[in-house]
């Protein structure tokens, strides 16, 4: 009996020691190389941004065209919830005076008043949503500045929704899966009830070498995606040659979505 207990204690002690030493082993055994290698096809950038040319959209696009939105929502298994209060939207349109609040006047050119503008997450350089998230479930990717969501870490406190000055975030008030009306895309996760979601600049498509779904879907080239740090990129060329505006620049969040009006 006595020796049994002693053996038990010894083994128990050794086990505890082993478990306690695990982080030490990890620290020494860590390799410098990353654990996986990037797809050689992947699109790499340092600061992804989008330039939206609304004139092109209105003039060249078919009336009421929703190609970009449909492509995005289909690709990301975004549910179609009719109730406006619980709507999930990653990319949608709103009128000029609502997108650029306080920037229209009673005499705004007729071609602007009431015109639809495409809106999505601005992937701000200084995102308020990331600042407030208590679990780092929403975070800014260091290498390319995309503001991303970890659906598995989000506790659903909705602090990010209060913080976002662009209304870019949607909350899954109910189980979204029965409301996915498009063909299910098995390569992108569906979400659960109780988490926040939003546009992710198609980071999963960039990793595989394709442009964001909305950009690819737009037949009139109104959406241009590229790296702001690359002087030869399409977005930089457009920014250099056109007068562009951003939503609520005065708040200092530094949006990365630009509009040519």
């Amino acid at each position, binding site marked *: 009996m006595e020796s049994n207990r002693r053996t038990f204690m010894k083994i128990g002690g050794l086990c505890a020691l082993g478990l306690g030493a695990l982080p030490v082993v990890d620290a020494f055994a860590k390799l410098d190389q990353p654990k996986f290698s990037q797809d050689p096809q992947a699109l790499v950038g340092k600061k992804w941004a989008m330039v939206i040319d609304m004139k092109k959209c209105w003039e060249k696009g078919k009336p009421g065209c929703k190609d970009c939105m449909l492509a995005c929502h289909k690709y990301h298994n975004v549910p179609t919830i009719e109730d*406006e*209060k*619980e*709507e*999930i939207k990653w990319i949608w349109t*709103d009128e000029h*005076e*609502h*997108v650029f*609040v*306080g920037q229209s006047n009673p005499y705004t050119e007729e071609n602007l008043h009431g015109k639809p503008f495409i*809106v999505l997450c601005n992937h701000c350089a200084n995102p*308020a949503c990331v*600042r*407030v*998230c*208590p*679990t*780092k*479930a929403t975070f800014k990717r260091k290498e390319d500045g995309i503001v991303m969501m970890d659906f598995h*870490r*989000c*506790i*659903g*406190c*909705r*602090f990010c*929704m*209060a*913080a*976002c*000055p*662009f*209304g870019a*975030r*949607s*909350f*899954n*008030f*109910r*189980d979204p899966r029965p409301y996915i009306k498009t063909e299910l895309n098995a390569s992108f996760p569906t979400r*659960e*009830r*109780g*988490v*926040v979601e939003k546009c992710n600049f198609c980071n999963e498509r960039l990793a595989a070498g394709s442009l964001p779904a909305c950009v690819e879907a737009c037949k009139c080239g109104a959406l241009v995606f590229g790296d702001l740090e690359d002087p030869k990129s399409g977005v930089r060329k457009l920014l250099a040659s056109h007068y562009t505006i951003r939503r*609520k620049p005065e*708040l*200092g*969040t530094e949006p990365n979505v630009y509009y040519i009006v």
Partner: protein
Amino acid sequence: MLERALTGNQKYYRLLMLLLVFMGMGFASYLMQWNKGLTITGLSRDVSWGFYIAQFTFLVGVAASAVMVVLPYYLHDVKVFGRITILGEFLAVAAVTMCMLFIVVDLGKPMRLLNVILYPTPNSILFWDMIVLNGYLFLNIIIGWNVLEAERMGTHYAPWVKTLIYISIPWAVSIHTVTAFLYAGLPGRHYWLTAIMAARFLASAFASGPSLLILLAFILKKYTKFDPGREAIDKLSQIITYAMIISVFFVGLEFFTAFYSGIPGHMHALQYLFFGLEGHHKLVPFMWMFVILSAVALTLLINPATRKDDKFLKLACVAVFIAMWLEKGLGLVVAGFIPNPLDHVHEYAPTIPELMIALGVWSTGFFVLTVLYKIAVSVKEEVEV
């Protein structure tokens, strides 16, 4: 000491039973929310915080009741508060308990709550709010319990308790400040983006918390042998008077800045609350009720004759409590979301299940409070005998 909670007269048991029934109703509603999600509430993608978070915000204020008796007693040697510090501390325990429950019922994924600790994020104010609220809860439980235990034994509490008491004073200020920072640091929410938010929270807290404390003291006086003492009530009512004046003054400051500057974003929320915006005016009657109740309360409190009259004082305390609940527990949180970032007005109203869950949480808080007060009063009664 806990066993004192198990023996009581019929009224005590009846009260507990009633609270248990409400708790059960709230729990049943919460099961519904657990199964269906927050879709059972009136919340939307535009007004994403509502009744729960508003109750949480208001109750952080009620938790301040403790410091308003503890601070004068320990720092200014106001001896008359000696008998009621325990009431303040236990009220704080009950209020913070409710605060935490309101946060939990508001979460979309409550089972992931521990992520806040597993992935600590110091840049999030919510992380700090968790720390200060938990800290305040434990401080008040430990202090209250030890002081009461010492009183029962007829001894003086240990010196380390005194240290905790001193810590609890600035800590009480911190819970309001941090809770105000949840709101005051968000770009694009003009109604919340005000430097006096924390000051407003403190002022309204020091009005609503002690008001409830006075009302509770009167209830205890009526149903038990415990007497808080006339002077303590007088002193507390003076504190409420000052805090209420400052609170209303602060609301006035918001009005001036918004309407004299004429900046639309600053005016919108106040317009929505008090006059209605673009044909939406669900909260207007409630906010005018706040105005009327504040006027009544101030009239009764500033006039010494009515303030010193029990009947009027009770009325004033009820008025202060409801007025502050309307302003902070209803208007402040909801109006921050109106209009939404795209300048649309989408209104919010709580649903029945949402109200039931809130009732359940309030009942849980009052259950805790009843039990703690029962223990405190029993000990005090024994000591006096």
